[in-house]
């Protein structure tokens, strides 16, 4: 299947997020690699996803799972070679699957040659590629993000006897984007991959590119200038490619990252995700409708990116203290499940492995405005291992079958980059791709079904949304509309059966066609449309005037 030529392809995409290390090991060294990933593209094609987002695969000391890059223009030897990547990319494109890679633009590893040169001497030409200071008192307004490990945003470098600026781990010095050479170099990095055929970049930690005294050093106009410059070059030289922003901010603060359609094409909607979990636990649509009401309009060419879980902790930065306490109590009873301001758990354990809730959450993910991202393994309900440090508990090997190492690798188990999940509920003998493929009603097959239904219309990716506010607050209902195409989505957030009356008078005369079974429901009349819904049930209805 060739790639579609639509420059707005990202609006209709279903993205699958995976770390090459975790997916499949082709050479038996215990670490997933590009040949292994390429070998599993058929699986992803069957799942019907049409974009892959790869976590960093570049040379790195791996002190932050690859987000500490030591060389932007190469592939980490554990994962293969540049040639392996090229081959994988071509195979993905052959299947109509686009590839999004990481551009960790804010910082490098302290092992990167640029930093090694920068710290070597104050006279080094690359000295100004990073943010140096004689004191650690500058930019006091900037918060510390990794509260569990860092006490300051400055770190002392004994070699050059100066402090360097880092918003994340101290081994990740921030690049100095006030330096035109850095900006030019970062464009060169992008160009390197774009010329190879990469379809998009996920730009990591974009709010922090530029620092200014007297500010919180986040979302600064100068940062937007840097990003706009990159976008301009991208459009000029590589039209149809896409930039995705990682900016864990409130919706109003995120809005500038779209600019006038001249900055990012997409941005993650971070505040929505925890509120979906909150709404589910509260059995109340309020958290979800509230945050979406606060979400500003974005330019027509732009898109939100939605997710339930990813490689990081379930971030609770964008919630109030009260909401955070609630989320901790409801979803992270054990303190070992908490990390920084978040919860380091996968989707299935968060939802008590309740198939109905997993389906409902995925139903909302696929039907709310935005491009959904599925985190690898969540399509089969993989578990996590909270005994592994940092966020490694949600980055364990993919579970392909119930055999040796879950089909991930032929290596000795002790050589695996991380142990497989082995507990009785989520362990690979119980939860694996092979088993679920064989079961008609497995979560995997259900996921394939919902992705297919979602892709059957562009209304979910491109349509407007209008919330209905039925008196029953346990029901989250909305109408998605694109031209003449209208889809009604009704979600029961409650663990019990609910009746709901929907005011559909403006759609009087339409019949409802349930999109999964394609069954016809009665015509909309003058009266409220009554539905009774089972626990955690949801419906997608196509409205047709026939």
């Amino acid at each position, binding site marked *: 299947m060739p790639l579609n030529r639509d420059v707005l392809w990202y609006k209709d995409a279903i993205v699958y997020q995976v770390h090459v290390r975790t997916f499949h090991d082709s050479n038996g060294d215990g670490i997933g690699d590009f040949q292994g990933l390429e070998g599993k593209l058929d699986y992803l094609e069957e799942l019907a996803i049409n974009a892959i987002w790869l976590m960093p695969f570049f040379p790195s000391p791996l002190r932050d799972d690859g987000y500490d890059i030591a060389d932007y223009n190469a592939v980490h030897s554990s994962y293969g070679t540049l040639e392996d990547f090229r081959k994988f990319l071509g195979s993905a494109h052959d299947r109509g699957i686009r590839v999004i890679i990481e551009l960790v633009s804010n910082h490098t590893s302290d092992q990167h040659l640029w930093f090694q040169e920068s710290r070597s001497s104050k006279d080094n030409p690359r000295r100004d590629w990073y943010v140096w200071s004689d004191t650690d008192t500058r930019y006091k307004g900037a918060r510390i993000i990794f509260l569990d490990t860092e006490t300051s945003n400055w770190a002392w470098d004994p070699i050059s006897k100066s402090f360097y600026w880092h918003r994340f781990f101290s081994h990740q010095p921030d690049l100095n984007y006030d330096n035109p050479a850095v900006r030019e170099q970062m464009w060169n990095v992008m160009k390197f991959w774009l010329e190879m055929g990469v379809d998009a970049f996920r730009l990591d930690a974009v709010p922090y590119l530029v620092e200014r005294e007297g500010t919180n050093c986040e979302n600064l106009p100068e940062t937007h200038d840097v990003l706009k410059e990159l976008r301009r070059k991208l459009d000029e030289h590589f039209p149809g490619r896409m930039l995705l922003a990682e900016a864990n901010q409130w919706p109003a603060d995120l809005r500038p990252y779209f600019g006038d359609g001249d900055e990012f094409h997409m941005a993650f909607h971070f505040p929505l995700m925890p509120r979906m979990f*909150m709404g589910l636990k*509260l*059995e*109340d*649509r*309020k*958290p979800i409708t509230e945050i979406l009401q606060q979400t500003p309009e974005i330019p027509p060419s732009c898109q939100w990116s939605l997710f339930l879980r990813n490689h990081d902790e379930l971030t609770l930065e964008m919630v*109030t203290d*009260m*909401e955070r306490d*609630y989320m901790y109590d409801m979803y992270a009873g054990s303190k070992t499940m908490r990390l920084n301001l978040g919860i380091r758990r996968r989707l299935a354990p968060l939802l008590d492995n309740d198939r109905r809730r997993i389906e409902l959450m995925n139903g909302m993910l696929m039907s709310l405005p935005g491009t959904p991202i599925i985190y690898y393994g969540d399509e089969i309900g993989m578990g996590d291992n909270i005994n592994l440090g940092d966020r490694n508990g949600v980055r364990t090997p993919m579970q392909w079958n119930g055999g040796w190492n879950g089909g991930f690798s032929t290596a000795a188990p002790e050589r695996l980059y991380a142990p497989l999940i082995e507990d009785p509920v989520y362990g690979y003998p119980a939860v694996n791709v092979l088993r679920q493929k064989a079961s008609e009603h497995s979560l995997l097959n259900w996921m394939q079904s919902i992705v297919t239904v979602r892709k059957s219309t562009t209304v979910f990716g491109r349509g407007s949304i209008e919330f209905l506010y*039925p*008196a*029953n*607050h*346990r029901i989250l209902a909305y109408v998605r509309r694109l031209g003449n195409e209208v889809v009604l989505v009704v979600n029961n957030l*409650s663990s*019990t059966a*609910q*009746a*709901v*009356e929907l005011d559909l008078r403006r759609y009087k005369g339409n019949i409802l066609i349930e999109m999964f079974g394609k069954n016809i*429901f*009665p*015509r909309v*009349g003058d*009266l*409220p*449309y*009554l*539905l*009774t*819904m*089972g626990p955690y*049930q949801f*419906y997608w209805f196509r409205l047709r005037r026939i």
Partner: protein
Amino acid sequence: MLLEARLHDGAVFRTETKVAEESYLTDDFLRQLMNVGEVDILVGLPTHNNAKTVGSIVHTIQSGILRGFPRERAVIINADGGSRDGTPELVTGVSIDDVRPASNLQALRTLHSISTKYASSSRSASGAFRTILAAAELLRPKACVVMSPESANIQPEWLSKLLRPIFDDGFDLVTPIYRRHKFQGLLITNLLYPMTRALYGLRIREAYSPEFGFSGRLGSQFLGQNVWSDETEGAGVELRFTLAAITGKYRICQSFLGDKDRIERRAVDLVPALRQTAGALFSALEPDFPVWSVVTGSQPAPTTGSDQEVLLEALRVNRKRLREMFLAGIAELESVFQSILSPSTLAELQSIAHLGEEEFRYPAELWVRTVYEFAASYQKSVISRDHIIQALAPLFRGRMFTFLTENRNASAGDVEKNIEDLCLVFERLKPYLLQLWKTRE
């Protein structure tokens, strides 16, 4: 999923008729309850023409919920007796968003306020209470509270104080204790509290209150009792609720709320008040006889919060008028008293009626005997029960005169001691009531 097949002919959910002949909840109210669904906290708000106060009361309730129960599912049920001043609209119109900015509070959930007009003769708030209990029956709350639509000094903390013992500690009924002026609530201190305590053996200071908390199971049990007939409707159903909790051996505690309104917001006629309290208490004695007849002495009820202490500021009370009404009653109702009171009690009352203002005293023992004889007569229905209650009014005024006189310069401790002494007289003379009861049989 079921689709309502009759939707298009409109037969099902859009009528205003009752769901069944015997139902006292309208379909519209049921539909609202359906939308609310199961809750953790239910706040009942009975109203009737309370537009002047109800808006701020609802704000306070919402604030109390946000502060005390931010995570719980909560609903405010307004049972209105047919207000013509827009009270229900005010209740449902108060937005939670009005509360949040001022108090820096946040609601995690939807907070519902729904209103219904209760089907009742509106003789009392019993129709409202029944509606609230019915809503509780359907919404299955863990804890409920009824709040007065008139309390001028209601505080957000009152909700927690009335609900927490139920929510956290498994109590079934939480009655309030207020800090009152020493001359406030005389019907409670001189009749209701001491007599309830003597009869049922539990020291509940405010057995009849416009604010109280209760568990869903107590509400459900009481809703099923035969107390809602036309004959008894309006007769202090809140007091009967407390008595039902005692006789049903539910767990009861008291919670100190704070200051009670210093000045009643509207003058309450004594006779209706007596109907609601003494009348309800007297009428409960027959069904509750197996319980109270074997009780001796009394036990304190568990109490949370500070001890109540009466306030002592000067308060102008027209004592002279009270005595005049007592004297007029003695003179005009002699034939009525003859059928209610024993000859000796009547003679003593006539005797004190001849005393001058300075010497006038209505002694505690005589007062207790009077009340007990009224209770027994009420049961015998020697004359119309309503006439019996009306006849008690002038005598109570005489007792009020004495209480005011005796406590005019009393300290808080003295006042409390005098109330306690009266309670002990009620307890000591309880055999006299039993004797009257046996005589009746």
